[in-house]
Structure formats: C-alpha cells, structure tokens
C-alpha cells in the first residue's frame, strides 16, 4: 500500500506545482504580457470585457500576490478557469467539448501502441541475434521522426493520394453526433489514420525496452529451469515475458506525458477537434486564459493516467506489496 500512497502524494504535489506555475507565469514574466494584451485589445472589446480579463488575472483587485493566489485557488476549486478572450465562452465549457476527443484518441493509441510494442519486443528479445534484429534501426527511425511530421506524411499518402482513409476532422459532416452506430462507426473510421500515425511514432520505444528486458530475462536461471522442466516454448516465453514486462509498466506512467506531448500535434495535423488543436488556436490568438486552462487540464489528465498505470504495476508485481520494498 505504501507505494500507492507515495505515488498519490507525488501526484498531489505535481498538481500543486502545475497550478502554482500557472498562477505565477503571467504575473512574473518579464515584459508584462497581460498589460500588453490589454493594450492590444483596447478598442476591440467592450470596457466591461477588459475589466473581466483584468479581474481574472488579479489586476483589478489591488491585492498582494499571496491574496491573489488564494483567490485563484478558490476559483479553481469551483471549476472556474476564467473566460476565453477570443471565443467568448468560459474555458471550462470549451474544454468540456474537446477533452473527450483527446482522451479517446490518445488513450486508444497508447493502449494499442503498448500492446503491439510489447508483443513485438517479446518476440524480438526471444529471437535475438536473428535477422529480425534488422527491424530495430527502422523502428528507431520512426521513433526519431517528430509525431506531427509522420502524421503529415501519412495524411498525404494514405488520405489525400490513395483515399484509403477519410481525413480532417473527427467525423463526417453528414452524420449527426449522437450515441448511435452510424455516428460511432464514423468516428472510428475517422480515427483510424490518427491512431495509426501515433502508434507508428510511439511503438518503437515500447518495443526496444521490452526487447532489452527480454534479453536480460532469458539469461536468468528461472527461464533455464522452465526449459529444463520441458515446458512448451509458448509457456517459457510467457514466463520470461511476464517478468520482463514489469519495467515497461513501471515506465508507462512516465512515458504517458511524452506520448501526450507528441499526440497533441497529431490532432493539429488532422484537424481533430481535441485539446491540441484548441491549444494551437489559443497560442496563435494569445488567448492566455485558454492556454492556461488547457495546460492545467492536460496535466491533471496525465496525472490521472499515471495513477492508473501505477495501480496496474502495483497489482502485477507482488514485490511492491511487501512493506520492505522502497
């Protein structure tokens, strides 16, 4: 249990750091970005709206930094992330629409990528030294390509040229959103290419990690023992793989952040209506409340995903359950 409590503590601290960074950045950055923004907006929006912006950054209160901080925290706890400057709606209502798309897309991609990579890595580790090893440099190449570049190339070849996949957006203009099969299958169809490109970019990491652990495991006595007992090959592989997968799962929680970072840009390329696309718009329009809201929501979601991965690790590795383990 200690492990889970420790991790919970870590994520609580991380969440607090993210919130505090979010609070301090606009207030302490050189060049006073908020003042510049207000200067730019004057004349374009009503004085009332400018007052609202000033208030949301604590500029209208004549409060000290500490008092502003507590006002900010109170607002956050009420789910109040401020009002978007360009879209004119509250940040939380905008995010409520785009977060499910991102969670769906990246969640599915991560699970597929992890599963495929682990299986491939197990096999590569088992047949180490064979001709299959020549897959490794290829996989490395795909890993080194930025996610968004690979996505662009995939979009071009398989979307625009070959017309194998529908592109741009999360569903066709001709279907109405709702919980019915027509819509759901349409969403799946539109999600295929984005998922494939995220998987291609991220699978190599899992594969190589698993391969290296497999090679180390295969040298262990317990695997030799399993062979000596005359177990069928499949059972032996399973035996080794079950032990080799543990570091992968331990790393899962840390890798999620990296995958999310890359995948956000894939949304951009495919015009997917998720958080990544929104973030770019917000950055281009210097919509600071929206940028901050997105950052906070992404961070908290990643932390939640990390916690799930940690619980899985805890459930799979009995050693973490003994109190001696640190």
């Amino acid at each position, binding site marked *: 249990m200690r492990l889970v409590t420790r991790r919970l503590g*870590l*994520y609580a*601290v*991380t969440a607090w*750091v*993210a919130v505090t*960074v*979010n609070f301090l*950045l606009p207030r302490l*950055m*050189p060049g006073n*970005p908020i003042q510049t923004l207000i200067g730019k907006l004057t004349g374009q929006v009503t004085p009332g709206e400018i007052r609202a912006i000033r208030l949301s950054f604590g500029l209208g209160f004549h409060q000290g930094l500490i008092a502003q901080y507590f006002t900010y925290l109170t607002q956050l706890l009420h789910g109040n992330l401020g009002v978007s400057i360009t879209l004119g709606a509250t940040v939380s209502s905008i995010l409520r629409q785009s977060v499910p798309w991102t969670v769906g897309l990246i969640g599915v991609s991560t699970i597929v990528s992890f599963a495929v990579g682990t299986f491939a890595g197990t096999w590569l580790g088992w047949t*180490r*030294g064979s001709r299959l*090893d020549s897959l*490794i*440099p290829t996989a*490395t*190449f795909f*890993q*080194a*390509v*930025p996610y*968004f*570049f690979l996505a*662009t*190339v995939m*979009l*071009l070849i398989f979307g625009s040229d070959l017309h194998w996949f529908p592109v741009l957006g999360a569903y066709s203009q001709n279907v109405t959103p709702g919980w019915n099969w027509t819509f759901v299958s349409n969403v799946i169809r539109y999600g295929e290419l984005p998922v494939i490109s995220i998987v291609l970019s991220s699978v190599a990491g899992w594969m190589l990690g698993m391969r*290296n652990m497999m*090679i*180390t495991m*295969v*040298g262990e*006595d317990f*695997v*030799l023992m399993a*062979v000596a007992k005359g177990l069928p090959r499949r059972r*032996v592989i399973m035996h080794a793989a079950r032990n080799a997968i543990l570091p992968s799962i331990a790393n899962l929680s*840390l890798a*999620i*952040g990296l995958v*999310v*970072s*890359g995948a*956000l*840009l894939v949304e*951009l390329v495919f015009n997917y209506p998720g958080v990544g696309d929104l*973030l*770019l718009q917000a*950055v281009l329009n*210097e919509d*600071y409340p929206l*940028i*901050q809201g997105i*950052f906070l929501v*992404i*961070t908290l979601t*990643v*932390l939640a995903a990390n916690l799930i991965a940690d619980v899985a690790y805890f459930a799979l590795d009995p050693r973490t359950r003994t109190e001696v383990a640190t």
Partner: protein
Amino acid sequence: MKTLRVPRSPKVVTGLAIVGFFIVLTVVGPWIAPDNPSSTAYPALLGPSAHHWLGTTSLGQDIFSQLLVGARATMVVAFVAGLVATLLSMTVGIAAGYLGGLPDEGLSMLSNVFLAIPGLPLLIVIDAYLPVNSRSNAFVIGLIISLTGWAWGARVLRAQTMSLRNRDFVEAARIIGEKRYRIMFSEIAPNLLPVLASSFLFTILYSVGAYVTLAYIGLTSTSVWNWGTMLYWAQSNNAPLSNEWYWFVPPGICIALVGTGLALVNFGIDEFINPRLRASGLSSKQRKERGLARRTRLGLTPVSVTRAPTPRSLQPNPGVAE
C-alpha cells in the same frame, strides 16, 4: 580511467557517421549555403533542379539554403539544452543518490514532479508568455527546453549512484576525509560516464524534437531559420496538401536522421553498460571469432568480453560463457 570501448557494431558506426555528418553541417552549413535563405529573388515554387536542389518556397526562397542554414540553429539549441539538462540531472541525480535521506526525498520528488508534468504543454505555456525578442534567442529557448528535459537523466543517475556509493573506492575516499562534493564529482561522476553520455544524447534527441515542435507551431521567432520554422512556413502555405513535397519533406528527414543517429550511438552505450545486449548485437561472424555460439541459445545468453587469453585448461566451453 578506462577508455570507452564502444562496440564496433554496424549500428554504432552508422550512428556515429550520421551524427558526425550533422555536426560538420552545423559548423559549415551557413558558409556553404548557395544563397541567402531569406532572399526572395527567385520565382516561387520551382521544383527541384540543378540551380535549386530542393526547389523554392512560395516566396521564392531557396529551400536547400534554408536547410543548410537551419542546421546550425537547430543543433545549437539542442546542444545548449542537452548540456544544461545533463548538468542539472548530474547535480540532482548524484546528490540525491549519494546523500540519501531527506535530501534524496526532496530531490527525487523534484525530478518526479518534472517527469510527471507533460513537457510540451509546459513548454508552450512558458513560451507563450515570453517577450517576442526572447523567442529568437537560442540560449533562452535552450534553457527552457532543458528545464523540461533533465528529470529522466536525474532518475537514472540517482539509481546508478546508489549502486556505487558503498563501493570500496568511495568508502576509501570518505575515510581519508575527502569533501562531499569532491567524492560526488571526482570519484562517482567519472564512473557514471557511460550513463552520463547516454543521458546527454537522449536529452539532445529530446531537445531537437522539442525545439522543432515549438518552431513548427510558430512559438519561436519565425525569422530565425531552423528546420522547425521551415516546416511552419511549409504548413502555413499548405505545402503538404498541394504536393510540394520538396518543401516539407527534407527538414523532416533531417530531423529524423539526427534522431536516428543519436539513438544508434545510444544503443552502443547501452550495449557497453549491459554486456548481455552486446553479445546480441554481434553478427554471426563476429560471434564465431569470439568463440560464442553461432546462435544464442536459451539460458545461455553469452556475455561478450574481450579479455586476455586464458590458459587452455581454464577456457570455457565455446558457447557456454559464464
């Protein structure tokens, strides 16, 4: 100190060649570029030809020159970020691993927090608030990238330091009264060299990606040529969808090649650290030369070590190392 014996597997040689090529390009790129990358003197959207090896942009700029000039900015930022991040992770990782106790708790917490926060969104938030003139400064951008990229290295180094801290040579240094920082940086750090090198390469790899990404979404100055801004201009002029592949494919390939090169060199370092991986990286011919089984067999993953010849009677049965 032992010299690094990087295994001469084809992977590592290829990696070193690629990385070497791009380092040379970083230095000479802007000098050998045939044109000023910003000059709009040519017709727009020419395809590749003898005059313009990679064609021209929609503004009539020479793409090949942009690629050559852009190499420097991309690599310099990545190098600055890699260097700063490695120094940070070295300090935090070794201190945490060696000191233990409360300092370890604090420093580990710090690096875990930075690992858990997704890097790119944090980068974007920080960058969005930067004054515009700082966005073109390679060192400012490098510093910010290093801030999001040091934590992984610190974690690895901490674990390695913990396995070293009770070795005899560290114990000896402690007994003769060496200062703490001397033990950490003169006794322990040199023994972590392969791990340090690996984490340095990894951070450079990360930084190339992070910098290019920031530039691609237009968050660095668009007037500084790097591979990311090239992609930014290509994307904003719809080059991918109008089949102007010569505009957006070359920078992408360059980024991927740098990354592949660094990763391949890193494999070499991994094999150096873990001898079991080393044997699996050998070709069958090399394996035969070292007296290892032609095909590694189960339970007998050979550990490949080049050592002085042992007397005949002590030599292990070929293929049954260990």
